[in-house]
């Protein structure tokens, strides 16, 4: 009873149908995987997996040829690993101000598999400063971003950026083009409450070079508006380096009818308290990626290709493509060597 079912399920025609379905699913996911139902890929892959499993058990043309068997088993392995990866992954973004520690509660745009185990609690690092090179025409070059990670004796300074992510506890932190400046401020309420110290992040730089503004409303007092007037050396005619640590800035503060320009260290008395512009700082936007299967996927794929290469090697020795007569190019006319 099971044999005919297995036999039917292993049909090579079903493989072709499955492949066509997968092709359609891939074409539908094109450029918009987030907006396309994952089922357009899951259904064909599930179908192909069943078909392949049945063929591996039933069809001697696969299971009696070592290299080919390894290749197809690895295909199956990749599908299983990719599925497991989707269930356990985490993708998110975060923004970290220079001098602050990573906080797992600061994640935004979180996309998480239902089986993702919270491991971010054990991730610790402190954001440093960064530089980003730009070629003429505002083409972004290398990012060098400093982070401090706990080491045996104190903290270790690391340089990350671009294709060098910070990898901690399996979580990969990638710097992004989304980065900018922040103003470190302190606020002493007029009513005598506790002083507050914090940062106001400005929009991404140099993307929003023309709009370095933000606002904040103290508990007592009117809304305060801020503009950063930056001297970064930005020019799209020549190469330049964005270096927040070397950037000079003044902060324009507007509250009610009052408008003042502050240099780092200056303060101003506003309606609800005293505001001090302590210094200019920076923030970096990170993309966070976690998928425990990526190394397994890599090794499975490599073993699969090695299997296929072995199969190819065996096929090369078969005589079906070799010339049989002299007129069929058995003599190498360039070297004069006889090849048959």
């Amino acid at each position: 009873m099971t044999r005919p079912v297995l036999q039917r399920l292993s049909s090579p025609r079903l493989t072709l149908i499955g492949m066509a379905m997968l092709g359609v699913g891939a074409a539908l996911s094109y450029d918009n995987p987030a907006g396309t139902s994952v089922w357009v890929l899951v259904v064909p892959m599930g179908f192909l997996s069943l078909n392949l499993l049945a063929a591996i058990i039933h069809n001697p043309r696969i299971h009696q040829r070592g290299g080919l068997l390894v290749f197809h088993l690895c295909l199956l392995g990749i599908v299983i690993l990719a599925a497991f990866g989707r269930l356990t992954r985490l993708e998110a973004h975060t923004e970290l101000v220079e001098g602050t520690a990573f906080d797992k509660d600061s994640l935004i745009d979180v996309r998480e598999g239902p089986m993702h185990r919270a491991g971010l609690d054990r991730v610790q690092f402190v954001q440093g400063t960064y530089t980003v090179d730009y070629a003429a025409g505002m083409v972004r070059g290398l990012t060098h971003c400093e982070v401090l990670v706990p080491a045996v004796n104190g903290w270790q300074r690391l340089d990350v950026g671009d294709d060098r992510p910070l990898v901690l506890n399996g979580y990969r932190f990638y710097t992004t083009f989304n980065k900018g400046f922040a103003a470190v401020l302190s606020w002493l309420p007029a009513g005598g409450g506790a002083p507050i110290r914090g940062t106001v992040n400005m929009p991404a730089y140099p993307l929003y070079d023309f709009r370095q503004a933000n606002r904040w409303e103290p508990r007592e007092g009117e809304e305060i508006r801020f503009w950063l007037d930056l001297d970064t050396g930005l020019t799209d005619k020549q190469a330049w380096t964005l270096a927040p640590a070397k950037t000079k800035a003044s902060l324009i503060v507007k509250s009610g009818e009052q408008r003042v320009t502050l240099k780092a260290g200056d303060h101003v008395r506003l309606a609800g308290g005293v505001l001090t512009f302590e210094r200019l700082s920076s923030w970096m936007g990170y993309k966070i990626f976690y998928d425990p299967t990526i190394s397994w996927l890599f090794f499975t794929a490599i073993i699969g290709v090695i299997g296929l290469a072995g199969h190819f090697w065996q096929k090369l020795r078969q005589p079906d493509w070799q010339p049989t007569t002299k007129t069929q190019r058995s003599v190498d006319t360039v070297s004069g060597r006889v090849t048959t």
Partner: protein
Amino acid sequence: MNASFATELPWLYAGLASYALATAFALKGAWQAQTIGPQTTAGNERFVLVGAVGGVLLLLTAITERWLRIGHGPFVSLFELIMSQLCSLGIVYTLSYWRVPMLRPSAVVVFPAIWILGLWILFLDPVASPYPPTYHNKWLWAHVGFGKFFLAFCLVGTGLAGVLLLRAHTRFGSWFRAMPDDARVDALAWRFMLLAFIFHSLMLVAGAVWAQDAWGRYWDWDALETSSFLNWLLLGAAIHVRTTYRIAPRHGALAIIVIFVFAFLTYFGAPFYSEAAHKGVI
């Protein structure tokens, strides 16, 4: 554009001239095979080989010259991609031509196909391209290298597929009299396609590792990823069709050509259709 800065151009033109020599002798060989007989091709084959080797060496010089001029390898602009493809396709075809004498008459198909790129590059701007930050990665080399082997083996298979199709016409049949019967040419063509499939698989793996480093995800169905996955699937499906059904060599040849055209569009169309996404220039 100020082309006088592009010091690689004389080497490029010299390389193309050398390929033109190889093309001319390949055509002469085919014509003589038709008018006199297959035994006359020996001298022509030597010149095809000389022209092809010369072309490869001159193109390698052009690439080196440009590399020294702009400070990075031929990985970014369409001009660079085509220049390096002209070279790598030449290297792999020349080696195959030398080591597998049986496929030599296919040069009359392969060289005109290479000329699509040879003519295209003449219309492109050799202006220096900025090097994206994510390209400072060793996996780029593996990815690009495997991809080059894939396309080149696909081209060798396409040359043989062209032979199978041209042979069907009485006008061209005698060009390929020196080659074995259709069944053998078909078998050899699909050996090269299987080799192309292996390198395509390696290209996908190396590309995924690079994408993980560069963009923080190994796969995201962007234009180039989708197109190359579909190409891989198409080739896998064609290999399966051939083992599932009895396919006439000419139908198989058509399939190979479709796969090659798809690969060609993937290489020279998709990356420039959605430029920023895959190249990281943002």
